[in-house]
C-alpha cells in the first residue's frame, strides 16, 4: 500500500512524458488527453493515499528503500517515505498539475509544440513528486536538478523569442548557484554520517554526533542546504530568476509558482527542519523576511500582470520561509498549501485574461499593444465574469481577508513571528510581516482594480475580449472553492483546530539542546498569548491595504502620481526592482568579463608564448634530424640498394630466358660433378 501506490504516483507522469515525447505527434489530438488523463489518475491515487494515511496511520512515517549502490562497506540506498507532510504535498502537487493540464488544453491550443509542452509538464510533475516522495537527500538532489531541467525546458518553451531563452538560461544558472551550496551541505552530512537517508542523519544527530565534531559545522550544513531552497524558492539574493520566468507559457508559471518548483525549496526546509540549529533557523527567518519585503515593495509599481504576480509569489515564499525559520512550522507549510491553490488560481486567471486580450488584439491585427500590461486593460469585469469572480476570491485570499484560506495561514504566520519576537526579541520579523501583509493587500487590489474595474482603457480591445472556454474556467472555479476556509479548518478565525494542524505537526528538533530553537510547547504558549492581537492587527492592516488601493485606484481620492512623486527615490527604486539585475550584471557578469579578459591576455601572451616557443624548438630539432635522415640514413639505404641492383644487373645476363640453355647448364654441371665424384 505505502510502496506500490507512491511508486504508481511517481511513475505515471513519467510514463506520460515518455509516451508523449516519442509518440506525441502521432497520437490523436497530439496526446493531450493521455497526459491529462494520467495526471488525473495520479491525483486520484494521491487523494486515496492521503485519506488512507490520515485515517489509518496518522502519526507514522512509512519508509521503504532498496540498496542502490554498494561500494565496499558503503551502501547508498534509495527509497520512499510517506509521512503526512509528503501525503499532503502529493495532493497539492498533483491537484495543481492536473488543473494546469486541463487549463493548458484551452490556453495552449494551436501551439507549435503542443505535444512536447504536455510531455514537459509530465516531466515537471514527475520531478516534483520525486522530491516529495524521497526519503533520501541525495535522491532529493537528483529530482531537485530534474525540476531545474524541466523548468528550463518549460520557461524556454517559446525559445524562438530571445527573451524566453534568456529567461530559461537565467533560471537555470541562478538555481545552480543555490544548488552548489546545497551540494556542499549534503557532502558535509555524508562525510560525517556516511548516509544520505534523512532518518539516519537525524538519528545520528540526536545521538550527539556532530559533523566534524563541531556545532558550527551543523549550523553550516543547515544553512548550506538552505541555499538550495534560496535558489529554488527564489529567496533573496537569488530571487532574480523568477520574474523573468514569466516568459514561459502562463499555465507553466502557475505550475512553477504554486506547486512545483518554488514549493520545493519550502518543502526542503520543512524536510530537514529537525537538523536545523537555532542559528541556522534565524538566518532562514531573516532571509525570508528580507525577501518578503523586497518583493512586496517591487510588486507595488509593476504594470505587467504576470510580473506583479511573480513578485507576490516571491513575497509569499518569503513568508513561508520566515515562518519555518521562526518555528511556525505548520503555519509555514499550510501557507504553502493555501498559497498553492490561490496562486495557481491567480496565474490561471491572469492566463485567462491574457488569452482574452490576445484574441481581441489578434482580431484587431494589433501586434504592438502588450497583452499583459494592465494599463491596456480595465473594466474587463463584465466581459469575463467567471474569471473576475474567481480572481476576486484569490485576491481576497492572498490579501489575508477573513473567511479565506489565506487568512488562516497568514494569520498563523504573523502570530508565529510575533511570538518569536516576544521570546527572542527579534522585533524586525513581525514588523516586516505586518508591513508586507498591508503591501500585499494594496498591490493585489491595485491589480484587480486596474484589470477588471473602472473604464476600459481601449474600447476596441474591450469589445473584442470574451470569456475563456470552459476547459479554462472550470479549473478556476475549483481553485476558487479551495481558497475558502472550510477546506482547512471549520473555524474561520483559527487554523489550529482544523485537520491540517492535526495532521502536520512540527517535528522534534534533533540538534543538541543548547542549539535548539524554543521547544514547541514554549513556542505554542507564546503563540496562543499573542494570537488574538496578531489576528486583529492582520485584519486591520489587510483592510487598510485594501482601502488604500480602493482610494487610489477606484475612487481616485488620492492621485497615484503624487504619491509616486512624494516617494521619490523609493518609487524609482521599486520600479527598477531595486536594481538587482543591474547590480548582478555589474558585479558578476561584468566581473566575469574582466576576469575573462585577463585570462585571455594571459592565454595569448604567456601560454601561447610557451606553446609557440616549444613549437619553434621542436621545429629546429626536426629540421636537423630531417637533414640527417635525408643525407646520411637515406644515403646508406640507397647505397645498399644500388649495390644490390648493379650486382643483379650483372648476374641477369646469365638468364637468357631460354629453357634449353638452362638445361645445358644443368647437364654440364651434372657431368662435371659426375666426373669429379665418381
Amino acid at each position, binding site marked *: 500500500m505505502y510502496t506500490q501506490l507512491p511508486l504508481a504516483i511517481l511513475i505515471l507522469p513519467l510514463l506520460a512524458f515518455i509516451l508523449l515525447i516519442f509518440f506525441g505527434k502521432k497520437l490523436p489530438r497530439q496526446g493531450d488527453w493521455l497526459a491529462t488523463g494520467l495526471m488525473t489518475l495520479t491525483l486520484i491515487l494521491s487523494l486515496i493515499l492521503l485519506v488512507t494515511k490520515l485515517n489509518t496511520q496518522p502519526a507514522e512515517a512509512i519508509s521503504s528503500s532498496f540498496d542502490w549502490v554498494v561500494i565496499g562497506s558503503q551502501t547508498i540506498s534509495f527509497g520512499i517515505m510517506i509521512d503526512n507532510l509528503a501525503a499532503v504535498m502529493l495532493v497539492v502537487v498533483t491537484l495543481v498539475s492536473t488543473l494546469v493540464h486541463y487549463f493548458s488544453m484551452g490556453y495552449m491550443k494551436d501551439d507549435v509544440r503542443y505535444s512536447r509542452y504536455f510531455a514537459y509538464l509530465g516531466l515537471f510533475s514527475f520531478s516534483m513528486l520525486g522530491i516529495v516522495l524521497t526519503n533520501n537527500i541525495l535522491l532529493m538532489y537528483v529530482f531537485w536538478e530534474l525540476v531545474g531541467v524541466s523548468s528550463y525546458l518549460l520557461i524556454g518553451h517559446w525559445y524562438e523569442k530571445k527573451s524566453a531563452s534568456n529567461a530559461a538560461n537565467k533560471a537555470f544558472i541562478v538555481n545552480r548557484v543555490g544548488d552548489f551550496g546545497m551540494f556542499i551541505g549534503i557532502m558535509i552530512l555524508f562525510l560525517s554520517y556516511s548516509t544520505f537517508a534523512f532518518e539516519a542523519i537525524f538519528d545520528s544527530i540526536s545521538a550527539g554526533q556532530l559533523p566534524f565534531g563541531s556545532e558550527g559545522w551543523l549550523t553550516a550544513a543547515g544553512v548550506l542546504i538552505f541555499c538550495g531552497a534560496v535558489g529554488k524558492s527564489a529567496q533573496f539574493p537569488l530571487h532574480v530568476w523568477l520574474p523573468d520566468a514569466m516568459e514561459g507559457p502562463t499555465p507553466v508559471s502557475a505550475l512553477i509558482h504554486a506547486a512545483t518548483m518554488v514549493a520545493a525549496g519550502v518543502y526542503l526546509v520543512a524536510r530537514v527542519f529537525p537538523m536545523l540549529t537555532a542559528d541556522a533557523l534565524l538566518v532562514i527567518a531573516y532571509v525570508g523576511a528580507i525577501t518578503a519585503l523586497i518583493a512586496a515593495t517591487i510588486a507595488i509599481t509593476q504594470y505587467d500582470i504576470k510580473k506583479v504576480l511573480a513578485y507576490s509569489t516571491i513575497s509569499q515564499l518569503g513568508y513561508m520561509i520566515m515562518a519555518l525559520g521562526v518555528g511556525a512550522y505548520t503555519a509555514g507549510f499550510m501557507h504553502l498549501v493555501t498559497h498553492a491553490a490561490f496562486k495557481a488560481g491567480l496565474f490561471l486567471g491572469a492566463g485567462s485574461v491574457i488569452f482574452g486580450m490576445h484574441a481581441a488584439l489578434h482580431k484587431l491585427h494589433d501586434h504592438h499593444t502588450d497583452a499583459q500590461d494592465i494599463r491596456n486593460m480595465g473594466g474587463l469585469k463584465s466581459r469575463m465574469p467567471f474569471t473576475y469572480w474567481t480572481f476576486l476570491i484569490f485576491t481576497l485570499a492572498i490579501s489575508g481577508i477573513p473567511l479565506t484560506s489565506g487568512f488562516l495561514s497568514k494569520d498563523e504566520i504573523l502570530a508565529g513571528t510575533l511570538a518569536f519576537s516576544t521570546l527572542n526579541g527579534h522585533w524586525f520579523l513581525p514588523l516586516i510581516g505586518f508591513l508586507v501583509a498591508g503591501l500585499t493587500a494594496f498591490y493585489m487590489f491595485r491589480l484587480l482594480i486596474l484589470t477588471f474595474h473602472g473604464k476600459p482603457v481601449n474600447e476596441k480591445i474591450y469589445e473584442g475580449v470574451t470569456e475563456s472556454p470552459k476547459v479554462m474556467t472550470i479549473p478556476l472555479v475549483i481553485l476558487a472553492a479551495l481558497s475558502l476556509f472550510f477546506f482547512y479548518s471549520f473555524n474561520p478565525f483559527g487554523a489550529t483546530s482544523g485537520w491540517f494542524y492535526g495532521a502536520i505537526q512540527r517535528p522534534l528538533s534533533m540538534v543538541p539542546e543548547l542549539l535548539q530553537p524554543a521547544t514547541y510547547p514554549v513556542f505554542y504558549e507564546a503563540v496562543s498569548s499573542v494570537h488574538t492581537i496578531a489576528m486583529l492587527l492582520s485584519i486591520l492592516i489587510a483592510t487598510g491595504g485594501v482601502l488604500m488601493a480602493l482610494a487610489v485606484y477606484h475612487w481616485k481620492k488620492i492621485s497615484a502620481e503624487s504619491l509616486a512623486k512624494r516617494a521619490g527615490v523609493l518609487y524609482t527604486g521599486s520600479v527598477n526592482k531595486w536594481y538587482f539585475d543591474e547590480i548582478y550584471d555589474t558585479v558578476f557578469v561584468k566581473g566575469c568579463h574582466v576576469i575573462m579578459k585577463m585570462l585571455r591576455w594571459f592565454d595569448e601572451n604567456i601560454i601561447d608564448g610557451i606553446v609557440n616557443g616549444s613549437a619553434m624548438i621542436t621545429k629546429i630539432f626536426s629540421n636537423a634530424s630531417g637533414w640527417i635522415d635525408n643525407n646520411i640514413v637515406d644515403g646508406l639505404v640507397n647505397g645498399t640498394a644500388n649495390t644490390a641492383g648493379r650486382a643483379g644487373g650483372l*648476374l641477369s*645476363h*646469365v638468364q*637468357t*630466358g*631460354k*629453357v*634449353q640453355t638452362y*638445361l645445358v647448364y644443368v*647437364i654440364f654441371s651434372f657431368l662435371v660433378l659426375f666426373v669429379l665424384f665418381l
Partner: protein
Amino acid sequence: MELMSIQSFAEPGLIHFLIVSAILFSLGIMAVLSRRNTIMVLMGVELILNSANINFIAFSRFTELSLHGHMIGLFVIIIAAAEAAVALAIVLNVYNKFKTINLDEISLLKG
C-alpha cells in the same frame, strides 16, 4: 655348333641393352637441347623416358630385381602418357598466348 656359337654370340647381354638405352638417352637429350620446336622437345623427353624404361626392363631381366622393374616400367609409361597430355595442353596455351611454339622466342624470363 656353328649355329650354337652364332646363337651364343647373338644372345644379347645386359651391356647391349644399356648401350641401346644410352644411345636413346643421348638422342633424347640432343633433341631436348637443340630443337627449336616445342613438340620436338617433348618427343625428346619421350625418348629419355623410354631409354629409362629399357634400363628398368633390362635390369629386371638380368638381375634379381625380377618383376619390380616391370612394374616401374608400366608406371613410367602411364606417367609419360599423362605428361604428354599435360605438356601438350601447356603447349596449346603457350601458342594461344605467344602465337608461336618456337622456344627461342618464348623468353619472358630473360634477365
